[in-house]
């Protein structure tokens, strides 16, 4: 087996693990499980970055993998856990629609992602393994989690999963976006998480409610 084929196989395996963690996030009934799942997902993405870096000799990818590991696999999950403890969350993940319906939707998204990317032409050949459909599926499933969960923290987990999908796509499709852009994007994700955390805590301190539950603004 040539080196390129080995890398394809590894990326495909990691893609499967990514989808598996995504499914864990979708079906998680406890917020802490969802946080662990998204941390694991980020770890797999960092590994994928390391594998591609080794294969291509692209130093930027090492940096990206390192940043992903530090920020998304360690720092953000830690912050989320801290908020969970701080808020003393009594309620867990509250789905808007039944879990079964969410899972059916999730499966449909995955199938459609693979279908969509097989219809792509020449650019597809430049892409490592099945990375593109996995990336599309993660991005859309992250949004699905945000749309079908009522608690703020779960929505944040969905957001991180969605960003993971984009990072994975960028890595596998183009060996990563230019380094400076990747770092800028990571910085934005950190800042967004910070602002969201502040909002969640402020609502918790003024009215004893989850910010995502507020629905007074209508019409």
């Amino acid at each position: 087996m040539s080196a390129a084929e080995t890398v394809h196989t590894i990326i495909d395996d990691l893609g499967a693990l990514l989808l598996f963690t995504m499914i864990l996030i979708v079906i998680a009934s406890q917020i802490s499980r969802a946080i662990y799942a998204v941390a694991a997902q980020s770890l797999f993405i960092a590994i994928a970055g390391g594998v591609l870096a080794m294969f291509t000799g692209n130093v930027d990818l090492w940096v990206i993998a390192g940043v992903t590991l530090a920020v998304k696999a360690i720092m953000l999950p830690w912050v989320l856990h801290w908020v969970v403890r701080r808020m003393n969350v009594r309620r867990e993940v509250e789905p808007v629609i039944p879990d079964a319906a969410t899972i059916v939707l999730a499966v449909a998204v995955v199938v459609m992602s693979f279908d969509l990317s097989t219809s792509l032409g020449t650019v597809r050949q430049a892409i490592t393994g099945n990375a593109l459909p996995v990336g599309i599926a993660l991005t859309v499933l992250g949004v699905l989690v945000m749309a079908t969960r009522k608690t703020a923290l779960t929505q944040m987990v969905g957001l991180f999963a969605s960003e993971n999908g984009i990072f994975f796509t960028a890595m596998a499709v183009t060996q990563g976006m230019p380094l400076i852009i990747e770092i800028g994007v990571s910085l934005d994700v950190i800042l967004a998480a910070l602002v969201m955390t502040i909002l969640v805590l402020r609502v918790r301190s003024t009215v004893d409610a989850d910010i995502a539950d507020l629905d007074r603004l209508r019409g």
Partner: protein
Amino acid sequence: MGETLLWILPLIPTVTALLMLTTRDRRIISAIDVGGSAILAVLTLVLASEVATGGPRVLGVFRLDDLGLVFLLLLVVLTLAVSIYTVGWFRQAVEVGNMKAESLRSYFALVHAFVATMVVTILADNLGVLWIAMEGTTITSAVLIGYHGHQHGLEAAWKYIIVTTIGISFGLFGTVLVYAAAADVMGGAGAMSWLAIMKIAPTLDPGIIRIGFIFVLVGYGAKAGLAPMHLWLPDAHSQAPTPVSALLSGILIKCALLAIIRFQTISAAACGSAFPTEALLVFGLISVVVATPFILVQHDIKRLLGYHSVEHVGIVALGLGFGGSVGTYGALLHVVNHGITKALAFFCAGAAIARYNSRDMRVIRGMFPVAPVAATLIMLAVLSLAGTPPFSIFVSELLVLRAGIGQGHWIAIAIFLAMVVVIFAGLLHHVGAMAFGAPTAAAGREGEAWSPLVGMLLLAAIMVVLGLTIPASFDGLLQRATEVVVG
């Protein structure tokens, strides 16, 4: 000189924001606020004259062409007007307790940080930098929307940050796809530069660009307030402090439109112009139709103006969708006209809300006797927003309509006209009752302060002038900007 200005420009609001943090004195804060905005405006005018004579300026990831200049000019004019307006507005807000005196400086720092991110959005040639700056606008303005700190403001801020962050995640995904297609042709280096991509655009793989454009349109469309991704917009516009509402509606959603236009040009070159324009047409029509019923039943004046922005973003999308030079010219002119007029309308609404201490239009009655200038200006602004001649919005709506007729989009035109007529009636009904009649007991009787009025009159003057005539230099700018889009 021009190149140097490109990196100085985003620094001005950044430095202004940092200076805010050094003082607590309200007078000094106001002076820095107006001063910073004025310097930004002057430097932009210098840069504008250089671009007009010497063509686009490039520096690293920044580039200013005529298209960006249209948006940049709108931004600096609105920033200046907002600064002048805020001088008097925040005094009143502190008095009634809407703003806390001790946290004022962070408010002003955030406003200028918000402006800085928008400047970068407009100047960005690199599509990745464009995205980073766009997320930056979300982060800074989300804090501003929830600034009052009450439950409704925080709810609006949360909805805003979630919806627009989902949105621009899609935008980033689309950007990655376009980058992948470009890197496939030209290699990774420079494949994020809009200029570089445009040079090779006809050779890009149309399949992947098509998917990329849809992701970008939905993503940045959420930020632009195109229906059905507009859910955050009425909440955010109604809950934000009034000067921030004016910036959100006047320029932020236009920055997202600029991003869409950048990708539209790439997509038009790669897969033919029919594909992106049809997509824009669909979203434009949905926006105009969805906004209408909410405008009719609205009681909250700021929500009314928010939904009305959805309609007008829809009209801009329609102009771009009808396409051709007439449609694009009309759309760009509409961006400017709507930005100026809507900011003015928010200013007047803010003055009325302060006077009556309510956002409910059933409470705000009889403004003419108690605040004649603000009442006159709000009538003028609303007549203009409704599309009455001789105001500026009438001109740009007419151009959009003409482009549609030229392209034979009869169904779209019929829907568009019907909605515009209904909204016309609805708006005049709402605001006529606010301006005329006997003032309710809630009305404050104090005189009108100069500071909000100067900001309002500045915008009103521009609005009236643009309705009567489009100055030759501005017309030239719009035509060159149109060429950038149409090719």
